[in-house]
């Protein structure tokens, strides 16, 4: 059903209202307008307007993860956070930063680097356009989550606008804080379905003085597990333990960060620890970057990208499930993952969509049965019409629906895209 959107009504709220183009479509769903509010108050007015008009709002940061989740049920208005892009407060001595949601994550990091600090998150380096709000809304993370955990662990405060226009904050700008409910965490990973995140506060970590990657070549899933377990259960304190699993190269790598003398000692320990498994090499940053085709698959090649999780010690099983499901069907699958976290990303490419669907469903069935999950991260819309992006939820689905109902009863925000079709 075509909804005739009252564009003039929107123009009364916010200056930047433009007609949406094909590039704004989300999984083939064509929005009508793109609005670019500059303040939380404008966001509130837009949401109130959308609710009263009965139209849906999809929030967008840099648009790098617009493909995540299911196909939207509707998305008349794209609310772009692009114009809310400032660093509001950064006091290096407090190791805390407060930023607007539309600020580019890479820009914020670069600014923090100047004070020898960082938000200890490293979502795929390909996502240059990713915004802070987008990183929070998707709970995105990267290899360093092994040491520093994920967005939900590093966010210490948030300002959000609810579907009814309420502007609310939780948390604050101190690292240690237990006052009130931690809504910053609740909103992390909620994919814009509970409200619009307009500001986020993070705790910061010092930028490591030195870093090196040590990698061991492996041949079998069991060797990959052995290498990961040796590193994980050691006292080396790696910052990341990664798996790279392609046709040409199979490696387990450890990112070692510290002061120079610390890195040197860690490097030596890692070499000793891994040499019985396979050939061990130390890589500098450039060599590491050239490990390709191993950056986390992002779907830019049109492939189906999945994120699979099992208990970390089942790494070998996880590799086997994913490779079995694909090999047999002639699907090429490169695996890259956070080995010691038990998470693997895999880009499945092959021309036959039926085979892709079967492969994902087979792998999901086994992984879920073993207590894990398999989420489809990126996929063509035709694939998403056949396979649910999230897979089955546990016994928390009913509670999940109640949370959504309380925060967005009218279903204005990103309807259909999240778990269970909410």
């Amino acid at each position, binding site marked *: 059903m075509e909804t005739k959107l009252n564009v003039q009504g929107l123009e009364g709220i916010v200056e930047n209202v433009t007609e949406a183009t094909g590039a704004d479509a989300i999984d083939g769903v064509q929005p009508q307008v793109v609005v670019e509010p500059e303040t939380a108050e404008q966001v509130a007015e837009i949401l109130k307007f959308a609710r009263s008009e009965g139209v849906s709002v999809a929030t967008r940061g840099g648009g790098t993860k617009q493909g995540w989740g299911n196909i939207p049920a509707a998305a008349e208005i794209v609310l772009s956070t692009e114009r809310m892009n400032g660093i509001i407060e950064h006091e290096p001595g407090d190791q805390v930063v407060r930023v607007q949601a539309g600020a580019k994550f890479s820009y914020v990091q670069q600014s923090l680097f100047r004070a020898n600090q960082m938000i200890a998150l490293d979502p795929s380096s390909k996502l240059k356009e990713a915004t802070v709000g987008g990183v929070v809304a998707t709970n995105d993370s990267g290899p360093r989550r092994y040491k520093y955990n994920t967005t*939900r662990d590093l966010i210490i405060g948030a300002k959000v606008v609810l579907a009814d226009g309420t502007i609310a904050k*939780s948390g604050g700008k101190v690292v240690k804080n237990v006052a009130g409910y931690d809504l910053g965490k609740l909103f992390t990973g909620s994919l814009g379905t509970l409200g619009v995140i307009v500001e986020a506060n993070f705790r910061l970590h010092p930028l490591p003085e030195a870093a090196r990657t040590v990698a061991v070549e492996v041949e079998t899933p069991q060797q990959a597990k052995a290498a990961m377990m040796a590193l994980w259960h050691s006292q080396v304190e790696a910052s990341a333990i990664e798996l790279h699993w392609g046709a040409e190269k199979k490696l387990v790598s450890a990112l070692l960060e510290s002061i120079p003398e*610390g890195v040197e000692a860690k490097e030596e320990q890692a070499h000793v620890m891994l040499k019985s498994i396979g050939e061990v090499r130390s890589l500098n940053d450039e060599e590491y970057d050239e490990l390709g085709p191993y950056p986390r698959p992002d779907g830019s090649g049109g492939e189906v990208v999945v994120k699979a999780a099992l208990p970390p010690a089942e790494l070998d099983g996880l590799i086997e499930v994913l490779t079995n499901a694909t090999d047999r069907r002639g699907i090429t699958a490169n695996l890259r993952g956070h080995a010691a976290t038990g998470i693997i990303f895999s880009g499945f490419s092959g021309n036959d969509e039926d085979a892709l669907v079967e492969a994902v469903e087979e792998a999901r069935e086994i992984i879920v049965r073993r207590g894990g999950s398999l989420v489809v991260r990126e996929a063509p819309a035709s694939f998403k019409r056949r396979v649910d992006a999230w897979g089955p939820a546990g016994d928390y689905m009913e509670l999940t629906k109640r949370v959504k109902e309380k925060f967005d009863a009218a279903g204005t925000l990103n309807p259909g895209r999240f778990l269970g079709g909410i």
Partner: protein
Amino acid sequence: MEREKLIKAMEGILGERGVIHEREQLRTYECDGLMNYRVIPDLVVLPESAEDVQRIVRICHEEGIPFVARGSGTGLSGGALPVESGLLIVMSRMRRIIEVDLENMRMVVEPGVINLHVSNEVAHENYYYAPDPASQSVSSIGGNLAENSGGVHCLKYGFTTNHVMAAEIVLADGEIVNVGGGKANDAPGYELLGAFVGSEGTLGIATKVTLKLMKKPESVRTLLAAFGDLEEAGEAVSGIIGAGIVPAAIEMMDSQTVAAVEKTVKPGFPQAEAILIVELDGPQAEVDSQFQRVYDVCETAKASEIRIAESDEQRALFWKGRKAAFAAMGSVANDYYVQDSVVPRTELSKVLKRIGELSEEHGLQVANVFHAGDGNLHPLVLYNNENEGEGERAEALAGDIVFACLEHGGSLTGEHGIGLDKKKYMPKMFTEDDMNTMQLLRCAFDPHHLCNPGKVFPTPRLCGERPGPWKMHPIQKAGLAEMF
């Protein structure tokens, strides 16, 4: 439901030994670690399984009986204070370690398990559970979860919320849900676990908890530095952080605290205006080198004395002195009130100065012992309740300290929670919209406000109320009560 019928119903679930109804016995449970509030619960029940909890809560749900879950009762904000005409569900009989999975560095425990027992269970294999509240030898995992407990080592390792992987929760209607990923990370869906941890028992009762274990660090080194004033000690803290070092702990004590500690546990601390304990842990080479830097920073900040713990015994003595600080205050004051505010670290010296002024204004002494690394203050307001009006003055002073912290960008509480004690201050930190938004979560979990009601929020909106502008509470409107 009549009390007698309720007793029978509970005995039907738990047997006679699982129900406490004699008034004298009930008094044991009239307060938690915050003893200035006392409420005798109507009934105390002691479940032994998640199914017990579920059946108890179902009856509460059907009958509209409010309930409060309690672990060891060490909380310092009245979070586990019973509610009148309500049920107190004591979790201490649920203390089984269900599964130790060293391969995955996880442990599944019941909520009544004592924090320290988790680490003890795996110590022989060189693993431990990182969150270490000062009460760790008595406080339970369930309570730690409810309060999102910290500890001296959370500067480097984070809080309970960063170490809980999953939880089984009994909701207020008796439904059991599992939140978090379990042994696997990243289950799809909302961060329900993140919202639950630290919700002070108002969103449900955890009946099973999956904890993350860690490998013990290769090396630990600790030093104690004495300073001529708090400001110099503060400079040392800034210097350490500024050097990009993340110590496992940085703790500060003022001269009054040191004096009290010397009277009781006698760790042999130097008499100084301020004492800093800094601990580093991690790989040996890293720790050795950074330890030297910390030493140099302390020297530059004009430390009058620096002692290095040369043995595990000596390190234990340093920590004994620090961890005994609260208890030691009993030797210098009849009563004391523990504050738990937080300020951004760069505001520490200003706020400490302000606390000194407030102490003079109110004519009461304040001793300071705190987690300097993360700005979490624990000013101890010393008073004597036998002196007319001194208790009230102490509370007023404690309140002024809270306001001073908020003015400097801080928070009401760093680790003890809001509970009953600080709910009146919540509107000083959060707007009505902020709190109403938090209430939406409450309404999703516990629509009838049966789960630990009356805690955290001053006047919660009822879940049936339509969202809209905040309305003044009728009692407040009638001028009968003032909302802080």
